[in-house]
């Protein structure tokens, strides 16, 4: 196996969105490193600007200052080397599962190898029998896996998962989390997982970036030093994990309180990207 690719350096990035008086500072001089071959979770109050960071990494938004460096090269704009999964499914409804997976122009070349790799990837994510179905015929979890296959067929240096399990029901979400943890670990895929779910971060990540309120930056960086493969049971039972979890809850509660306070002080903020402070999910299982 070759050395993992995809070391990302986010160097002093600030992002302003909107124009004129509506302009807002969303990300404020934010710096972090995504280690190649590792899964880094980014957790923070919803609406804090995590998704904006994801959009900058994917190349959909521009940094107002600072730079993004991938494997030593500064990058901007969208590219197949950086793939993203959104909160809701984004498969083309008019294409079958297999056609969706080979949607990228370079993946469409009449190259028997490519087709076979796509079919293999579909088998790997458990959709081998669903290659000719339309997305509307797949369940939410299957749609997520098809998108995962589409992203992975591009051999991305960086995979960005922007709250990818949010819309799934509790059971499916848990299965998808464990399944994704296994798949990413096996491929040593450099991944940024954006989430508001502490348990999800602990299950999947090698490192967690706890983000501050908007304008966001890294408040604290925590290493999740747990053996793999991990399961929900193992994570729940582990004592270090419990300590990490308590610590994260403290940090996040603090940030949420601040965002509440800021929300009261600045009502003009209403309705702008997210809704200021939304509740944090601490234990997904007991809540749903």
């Amino acid at each position: 196996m070759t050395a993992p690719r995809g070391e990302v350096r986010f160097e002093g990035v600030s992002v302003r969105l909107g124009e004129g008086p509506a302009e807002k500072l969303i990300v404020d001089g934010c710096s972090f490193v995504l280690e190649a071959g590792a899964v880094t979770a980014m957790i923070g109050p919803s609406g804090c600007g995590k998704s904006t960071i994801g959009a900058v990494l994917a190349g959909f938004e521009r940094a107002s200052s600072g730079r993004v460096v991938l494997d030593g090269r500064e990058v901007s704009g969208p590219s197949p080397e950086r793939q993203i999964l959104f909160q809701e499914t984004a498969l083309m409804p008019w294409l079958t599962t297999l056609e969706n997976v080979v949607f990228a122009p370079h993946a469409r070349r009449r190259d028997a190898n490519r087709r076979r790799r796509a079919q293999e990837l579909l088998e790997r994510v458990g959709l081998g029998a669903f290659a000719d179905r339309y997305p509307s015929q797949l369940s939410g979890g299957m749609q997520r896996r098809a998108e995962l296959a589409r992203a992975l067929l591009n051999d991305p240096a960086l995979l960005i998962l922007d709250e990818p399990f949010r819309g799934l029901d509790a059971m499916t979400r848990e299965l998808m989390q464990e399944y994704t943890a296994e798949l990413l670990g096996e491929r040593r895929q450099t991944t940024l997982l954006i989430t508001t779910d502490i348990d999800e971060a602990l299950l999947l990540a090698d490192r967690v970036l706890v983000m501050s309120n908007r304008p966001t930056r890294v408040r604290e960086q925590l290493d999740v030093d747990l053996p793999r493969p991990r399961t929900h049971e193992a994570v729940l039972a582990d004592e270090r994990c419990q300590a990490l979890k308590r610590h994260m809850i403290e940090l996040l509660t603090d940030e949420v309180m601040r965002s509440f306070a800021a929300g009261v002080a600045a009502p003009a903020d209403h309705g702008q990207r997210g809704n200021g402070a939304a509740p944090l999910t601490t234990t997904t299982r007991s809540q749903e």
Partner: protein
Amino acid sequence: MNGASRRTIVRRGILGVLAWLALWEVGSQLGEWIGVAVPLLDKVPPPHTVVGDLGELVGEAGYWNSWSLSLQRVLWGFAFAIAIGVPLALLIVTSRTFRGLFFPIFETLRPIPPLAWVPLAIIFWPTQELSITFVTFLGAFFPIVLNIVDGAAQIDRRLVLISRSLGLGRVGTFARVLLPSTLPAMVTGAAVGMGITWEVVVAAELISGGGNTSGDGGLGFLVWNAYQGNDLPRIVVGMISLGIAGYLSSTMVRALGARLMPWRRAA
């Protein structure tokens, strides 16, 4: 289809038509039978005389000529509306400059009812035939353009972002995301437009006198002619013919749409 099979649907359709015919027959005859007239229906000829008239009409060349004339006007108007409307709508959708230049004019012309164009069309076009076809074209043109423009505004932005991430440029995104995304709106626009062409062609034929004096100036003219001759059953036959023609055309547009969008039948 959920629940009912195709056969059940056909059976229900036939049953519905028969029940409706029976009601009509009874309703229009009740005044004669028991002296209690049903309002409105009393004035309408009962189905058996209409069927009798239809039998007579079917044997006349003029009747089929009227079908063919109206159908030609509808199809030509509709074809031009598609051929001009679809590219124009796509231009409005993709080019901000073009949208800025063209959309205000479009929005000013759109509320003008196609029938208000008839006098100008008659003066403007060299032949009666072209005038009627032009007005028919207008009837379909606006809903087609408007539906596509609205449909494109509702495109899932994430699909566009993903396609750029997967390496598609402007042309690729247009052909492989924007076009298929707006296809449902195109089909809706075409179905609505087709319905309006039938409304418009009839009215245009009434106003313009059908284009010739031999009495076979289209189905709309057939109705008008029957009215002037006080031939009530013939009016009803003409109306039903128009209903059938409109029904068949929209069914065809819908069937074509289903063919073009197999993913909509799935699920």
